[in-house]
C-alpha cells in the first residue's frame, strides 16, 4: 500500500483533488530584534520583493529575490527567519506566553523555538528537546543567530520528557511525521502506509507523555506537516478517548478538520482542528488541546 495512485486516491476519498503545487517561500520577522517597517524597507532596498501573508502576524511571502534570502546580513543578524508559512501557524495559537514555562518537545532545527522565544519576548523559559543529536547543533546555531536567551536545549526523546521532573504551562508538539509531497519531490516513491502507521504510533506516545507533564490549566498545540489522517484527526480522536484531552477552538488559516475518515465517524470537536491541503503553503494539520475539565 504505497505509491502515488494509492495516496492520491486516499486524498480524494477525504475530499481533496490532488494537484501538483509548489509552496511559496516565506520569512518571519523576529520582532524582538527588529522593527517590522525598518526590516521590510531594508530588504526591499536589496531588491527582495515581499508580500504580507494575510493570515500571519509577522509573515511575508518572498515574491522575488535575485539571491538566497538566507545570505543577507539581516538574516545573519537574526532580524528575520526563513520559515514556511504554515509552519508559522502553531506557535501563536498559545494564549499568554509571557513568563511561561514552555516545552518544545521536538525542537530541531529550531524555527518554531525561535518563534516561541520571540512571542515570549525572551521571558519565561523554553525547554527544547530533540532526539537527534546531530540536529542540536543546527538548533543552537539558530538560537545564537536570533539572540534567543530563554531556552535550555536537551538531547532527549520527547517520550521521556517526564525525566525532567517539570510541569509545563504550554507544550508545542510539532511531532516527527511522514511529511507531504509538496515539500518532497520523492515523497510518493519513498512513503508507504506502514511509515504512516509507525509515525502515528510514535506521535501517540509523544502525546501521552505531554499529557502527563502538562499543568492542569496548560495548553498543548499539536501539529504535523502530514496529510495522512492517521497522524492527524485519528490521533486526536485517540487523545480525546485515552488522555482526557479536549480540542479547543482556534482561529487560524485552514479548513475545519475531517470528522469522517474513510467512513469512520469521529468526535465532532475534531472539526475545531485545522487541516491545510497543499497550495500556496505545504500541507499541514494543527490543533490546540487542553485537559478535560471533568477529568481534573
Amino acid at each position, binding site marked *: 500500500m504505497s505509491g502515488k495512485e494509492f495516496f492520491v486516491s486516499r486524498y480524494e476519498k477525504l475530499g481533496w483533488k490532488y494537484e501538483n503545487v509548489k509552496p511559496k517561500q516565506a520569512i518571519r520577522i523576529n520582532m524582538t530584534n527588529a522593527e517590522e517597517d525598518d526590516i521590510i524597507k531594508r530588504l526591499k532596498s536589496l531588491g527582495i520583493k515581499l508580500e504580507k501573508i494575510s493570515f500571519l502576524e509577522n509573515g511575508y511571502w518572498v515574491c522575488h529575490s535575485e539571491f538566497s534570502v538566507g*545570505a543577507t546580513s539581516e538574516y545573519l543578524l537574526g532580524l528575520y527567519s526563513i520559515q514556511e508559512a504554515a509552519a508559522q501557524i502553531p506557535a501563536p495559537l498559545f494564549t499568554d506566553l509571557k513568563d511561561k514555562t514552555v516545552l518544545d518537545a521536538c525542537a530541531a532545527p529550531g524555527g518554531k523555538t525561535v518563534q516561541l522565544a520571540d512571542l515570549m519576548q525572551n521571558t519565561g523559559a523554553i525547554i527544547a528537546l530533540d532526539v537527534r543529536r546531530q540536529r542540536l547543533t543546527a538548533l543552537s546555531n539558530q538560537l*545564537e543567530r536570533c539572540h534567543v*536567551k530563554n*531556552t535550555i*536545549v536537551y538531547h532527549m526523546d520527547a517520550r521521556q520528557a517526564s525525566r525532567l521532573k517539570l510541569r509545563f504551562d504550554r507544550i508545542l508538539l510539532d511531532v516527527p511525521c511522514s511529511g507531504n509531497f509538496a515539500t518532497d519531490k520523492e515523497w510518493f516513491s519513498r512513503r508507504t502506509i506502514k511509515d504512516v502507521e509507525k509515525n502515528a504510533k510514535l506521535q501517540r506516545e509523544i502525546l501521552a507523555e505531554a499529557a502527563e507533564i502538562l499543568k492542569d490549566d496548560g495548553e498543548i498545540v499539536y501539529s504535523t506537516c502530514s496529510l495522512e489522517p492517521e497522524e492527524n484527526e485519528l490521533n486526536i480522536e485517540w487523545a480525546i478517548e485515552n488522555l482526557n484531552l479536549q480540542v479547543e477552538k482556534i482561529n487560524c488559516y485552514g479548513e475545519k478538520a475531517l470528522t469522517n475518515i474513510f467512513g469512520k465517524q469521529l468526535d465532532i470537536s475534531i472539526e475545531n482542528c485545522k487541516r491545510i491541503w497543499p497550495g500556496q503553503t505545504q500541507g499541514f494539520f494543527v490543533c490546540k488541546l487542553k485537559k478535560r475539565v471533568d477529568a481534573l
Partner: protein
Amino acid sequence: MKQIKDFAKQFGARISLDESLIVRKENRYFFINEKLKKLITRDFFFVGTYLGKTKNGKFFPSFNLLSMIAEKKANKTIVDSKTAWLFICGRDIFKQGIMKVIGSKRKGDYTLILNQHGECLGFGRILHNLDEKRGKAAIENILDVGDFLRREK
C-alpha cells in the same frame, strides 16, 4: 570569568557579568538568568546566551558576546554597506569603506565592526594605524556573522 573579561579588554571594554549566572558545558560558556538557573540540569546541550568557547587555551567569542561588548564603550569601526557585505563574506576592510572609528586606531588593536545601523557584524585586528593613508587592507577580518553560513557547510 577571566577569559571573557580579558577578551573584552582587547577592545578597551569592561564587561561585568554575574559569575553565579555563568555556566560551563565542556569548553563552552553560557550566561543564564535566575529562571533558567532554577530549571537547568547538568546534562543540558545549550542554554541561555552563548558566550563563547575555549580551545587550546584560546577564547573564541560568540556573536552574542560581541553584541554585548558593542553596547559598552569599546573600539568600534563603522563601515559602509558595501564594505559590510564584503566583511561578512570574510574579506578584510580597506580604509575607504570606513565611515567612523570609535576608540583605538592603533595598529595591532582589536575593533568591533559595525554596519550603518549600529549592528555588530564581527571583529577584526587593525593592520596599520588608521590615521595613515595606505592602499592596503586596514583591518583584518577575524570573525564575521557569515560564519553562521560557513558552519552549515
